[in-house]
């Protein structure tokens, strides 16, 4: 079943590669926007051609946060499913429909943003009103991803039917967990966009319930970040062990961690709304407690990863307390890039606990600390792991090899990224604690000493941002090489195996009714009463506002 070292059939590989092309095109466009932002915020440069700062900020957030991530994840997960449980002709057709639906949606939204009709940032908070095409485009991206969701479900279902009584392959299990979470979560934003935003933006509904739309958005918004993270965890649990020459640490614990992530990723959206009016603080605190629960699977993951490294190293004969660490394959970019991602998740995760700590949120809410935080989590932990995957996945799909030269360039790319991000993210964290706001064009505000201290950190961010953009250019070069020019060959699709004497995985871990049932129960518990409150005590609705975002 597992044809690890054999390449996919051409028509499957072409499907998976299509997602990768969009991913890396997005990286280039979104990264360029990031560069322009940091330069513009330094106060030393002005955007050319009268381009608005908030237009590029919207492009940056939508293209990197929603498009790059979703395309990479769906493509990578299709490849994992194809490798572990197979892809039928019919499923392939549906996968293509998913791809094109998402792509059409992306282009619609992107064009709307670029012509300045949607300067609403990726969170599109009402009552700022973008052109309807923006919302419709986003809805198509989500609907397209749902087609992928159900295709993945079907793939595992068909495999299960063909292999009765066998436990599902670990990676297929993980993909289905992530897709189940994504589907349940994206219902929130879909309702918000389809029921609240689209009729209102077209003028069929006069007003919109702002707090309701925000609550639906953040019901989706936190699981969204876990949707980004889980594919990275898949690689950490089930792929990295193979790359370093080891075995799975524990199949059961990996599944358990993913189940906990499914349970506790969703009923936690209020921790993004801690300083908002109109939500009972007791319910905010309840969701803070649930948020802390979602830390636990990450604590488990930290242990599993170190333990994988240590057991592998000791088996290879490395002695001493940290001999296993010294002898990790530092020269292999398939390991090194994700490893830096793991390290970044230590301050990233720890910062996340601070952010979610109820009243302490007011220390950092909407300051640029938050931007620094998610540039560690998504833009380092997650993206470097994605890069780490791409180094073998792309040549595997194109029938080429990761050559020693490209491997070395990858190592350099990772180092550039690490340096750039350390400078940018650290200065963002500090500036945030000093009160500097996020999502804002350069401003002297009222002048004075306080603002002066912010500006020096903004200069540091421009330096970091420039270094990061060099890293992006190098990554694009490596991608093009791996896709079109690297020498033909066979690149391994690394999937770690269990120990021969591994304990059997408890059957209950695959009881989907149970886990999805608990997930829904937790969501109902966390959201029913506050949602009823929000709807029952809603103020008069908000009329749309076009002029603040420069629409006439």
């Amino acid at each position, binding site marked *: 079943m597992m044809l690890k070292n054999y390449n996919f059939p051409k028509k499957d590989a072409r499907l998976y590669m299509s997602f990768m092309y969009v991913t890396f095109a997005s990286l280039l466009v979104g990264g360029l926007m990031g560069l322009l932002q940091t330069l513009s915020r330094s106060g030393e440069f002005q955007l050319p051609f009268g381009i608005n700062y908030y237009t590029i900020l919207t492009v940056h957030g939508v293209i990197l946060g929603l498009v790059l991530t979703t395309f990479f994840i769906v493509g990578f997960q299709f490849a994992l499913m194809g490798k572990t449980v197979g892809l039928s002709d019919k499923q392939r057709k549906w996968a293509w429909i998913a791809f094109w639906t998402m792509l059409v949606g992306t282009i619609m939204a992107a064009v709307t943003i670029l012509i300045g009709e949607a300067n609403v940032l990726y969170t599109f908070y009402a009552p700022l009103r973008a052109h309807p095409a923006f919302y419709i485009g986003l809805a198509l991206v989500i609907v397209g991803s749902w087609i992928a969701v159900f295709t993945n479900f079907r793939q595992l279902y068909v495999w299960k039917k063909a292999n009765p009584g066998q436990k599902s392959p670990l990676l297929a299990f993980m993909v289905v967990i992530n897709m189940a979470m994504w589907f349940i979560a994206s219902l929130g934003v879909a309702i918000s966009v389809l029921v609240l935003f689209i009729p209102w933006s077209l003028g069929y509904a006069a007003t919109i319930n702002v707090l309701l739309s925000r609550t639906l958005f953040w019901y989706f918004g936190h699981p969204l970040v876990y949707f980004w993270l889980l594919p990275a965890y898949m690689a950490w649990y089930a792929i990295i062990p193979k790359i370093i020459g080891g075995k799975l640490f524990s199949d059961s614990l990996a599944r358990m961690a993913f189940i906990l992530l499914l349970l506790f990723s969703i009923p936690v959206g209020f921790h993004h709304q801690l300083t908002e009016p109109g939500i009972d603080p007791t319910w905010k605190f309840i969701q803070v407690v649930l948020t802390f629960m979602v830390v636990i699977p990450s604590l488990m993951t930290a242990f599993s990863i*170190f333990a994988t490294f*240590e057991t592998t190293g000791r088996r290879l004969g490395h002695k001493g*307390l940290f001999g296993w660490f010294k002898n990790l394959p530092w020269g292999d970019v398939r390991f090194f890039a994700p490893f830096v991602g793991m390290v970044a998740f230590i301050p990233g995760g720890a910062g996340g606990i601070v952010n979610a*700590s109820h009243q*302490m949120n007011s220390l950092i809410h909407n300051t640029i600390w938050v931007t620094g935080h998610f540039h560690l989590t998504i833009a380092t932990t997650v993206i470097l792991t994605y890069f780490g995957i791409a180094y073998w996945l792309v040549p595997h799909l194109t029938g080429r090899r990761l050559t020693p030269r490209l491997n070395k360039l990858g190592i350099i790319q990772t180092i550039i990224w690490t340096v750039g991000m350390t400078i940018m993210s650290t200065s963002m964290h500090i500036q945030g604690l000093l009160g500097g706001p996020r999502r804002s064009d350069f401003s002297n505000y009222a002048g004075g000493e306080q603002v002066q201290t912010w500006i020096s950190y903004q200069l540091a961010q421009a330096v970091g941002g420039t270094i990061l953009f060099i890293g992006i250019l190098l990554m694009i070069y490596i991608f093009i090489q791996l896709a079109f020019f690297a020498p033909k060959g066979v690149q391994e699709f690394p999937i770690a195996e269990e120990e021969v004497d591994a304990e059997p995985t408890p059957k209950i871990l695959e009881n989907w009714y149970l886990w999805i049932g608990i997930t829904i129960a937790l969501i109902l518990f966390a959201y029913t009463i506050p949602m009823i409150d929000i709807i029952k005590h809603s103020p008069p609705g908000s009329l749309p506002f076009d002029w603040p975002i420069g629409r006439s």
Partner: protein
Amino acid sequence: MAKEKPKQATKSNDSDINLKGTFISVMLVGIFILVLWFGSYALFLSR
């Protein structure tokens, strides 16, 4: 866990796997989390 299993004597699974380095590493992560959190909380209280 619902399906906690009794330790199997035949398994080389548990105590003889040396995970000392792992333990020290994760505890360092834990201490980092504590330091960052209490540092932030102190800053919050001082404001």
